[in-house]
């Protein structure tokens, strides 16, 4: 496996000296207490913000050297809140692709299928959807751009257990079959254990500990992580 993204000692007001890499075709989870800077870190990778210090590389090149829209499409992001646009589900799904005239008639159905929503949802107004449905539409909207990397911010937090399972299957498929690289924030430690091959533990803006998921959970080294596991 080769390094797809390298985050090199990056700092800003909310994260400090963050250093890690994402392997191509892997799923990495981020865990940590509320306010640790997990969401703030994702913003840097999608270049919605830039770091004050440090560099981020994508495919060996500084992310600031890519055309910014292209980079954002390629390193797609799903936010903690759905942030859907006013209008129908279909209008939301086609937003990204139609900026480049890349939307086709039945793309919508295929995207909805991926996130376990039926075809009828296409014409529904987003304001009438449940929280979990909105979350999945937001996920599908990002998938519509077919990004190589997915930054996911607690995308299963509003779903019931059965749907969580189905979404986790989707994540597995995206990694194993489509070769996507995923960086995913989760509050659900069991989910982190189930899904990730690699895990970052963030606390007070820093990545305090990182490693293979299994060993990180079995043998936490820092006091902060031990404390976090004890809840």
């Amino acid at each position, binding site marked *: 496996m080769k390094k797809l993204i390298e985050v090199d000692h990056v700092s800003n007001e909310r994260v400090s000296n963050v250093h890690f890499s994402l392997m191509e075709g892997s799923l990495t989870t981020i865990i940590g207490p509320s306010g640790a800077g997990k969401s703030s870190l994702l913003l840097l990778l999608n270049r*919605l913000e*830039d770091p004050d210090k440090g560099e981020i590389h994508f495919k060996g090149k500084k992310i600031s050297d890519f055309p910014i829209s292209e980079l*954002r499409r390629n390193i797609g992001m799903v*936010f903690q809140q759905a942030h859907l646009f006013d209008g129908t589900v279909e209008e939301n799904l086609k937003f*990204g692709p139609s900026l480049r005239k890349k939307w086709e008639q039945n793309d919508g159905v295929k995207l909805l299928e991926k996130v376990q929503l039926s075809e009828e949802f296409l014409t529904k107004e987003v304001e009438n959807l449940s929280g979990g449905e909105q979350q999945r539409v937001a996920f599908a909207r990002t998938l519509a751009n077919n990004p190589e990397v997915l930054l996911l911010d607690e995308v299963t937090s509003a779903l019931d257990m059965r749907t969580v399972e189905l979404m986790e299957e989707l994540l597995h498929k995206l990694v194993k079959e489509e070769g996507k690289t995923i960086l995913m924030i989760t509050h659900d430690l069991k989910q982190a254990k189930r899904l990730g091959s690699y895990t970052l533990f963030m606390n007070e803006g820093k990545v305090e500990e990182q490693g293979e998921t299994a060993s990180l959970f079995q043998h936490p080294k820092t006091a902060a992580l031990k404390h976090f596991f004890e809840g």
Partner: protein
Amino acid sequence: MTNISNLSLLTMILFVMIPVSLSYLFSLGIGKSAIWSSIRGVVQLFLIGYVLTFLFSMPDWQGVGLWVAVMLVIASLQAAKRGKGIPYAFLLSLSSLILIEVFVLSLWILFNIIPFQSEQVIPMSGMIIGNSMVATGLAFERMKNEFHDSKGKILAALSLGANASQASQMIIRKTIRAAMIPNVDSLKTIGLVQLPGMMTGLILGGASPIEAIRYQIVISISIFSSVSICAMIISLVTYRFFFNRKMQLLE
């Protein structure tokens, strides 16, 4: 037209006394400011009466030029107050108000809708500039509020590859729409619910209703288009101030 004599005008004091006594009776605490604002209003209007008389005695192009310039500056200052935090709010208001005034006035003169006389151009321009001022101020406020309230949506749009303009489309659309809606509504009920001020004035001044509505049509439609243009200019120019050059949301 019958004249209101000074003596008749003085009886207005009785009318002022009603809200003032109500204020004391119910301790509303606005007695003083009711008296004060009435006096101020009277003085202001008398002054304007003399100023207009003076302006109307000047050659038309001078009177119009002078007073339109004054109105434009006052209106821009007022509109810019609502645009606090937006760079160049005053210059932006001033240039869009100038643009609209020149545009509307040229059409009026070009198509012989009104003659180029101070008595016609000044009051009509005042209505255009006044309404455009309100629309400009509201557009500023709307843009600020929308960018604040819809921050998440804008970030989502940017993250999907939209540039600043594409990500702002939803807000620009809302701002222009919001400026147009009240005009659409008032055009629908015009004359039925309320006789517009201008028409009322003309009729009181002795014009026939059919004459009066002609003016009202001109002014209502001109205001409608001015207000829409205002909101369009303000939103299309100001959205970029909310982003940096790297298509990142500021603040």
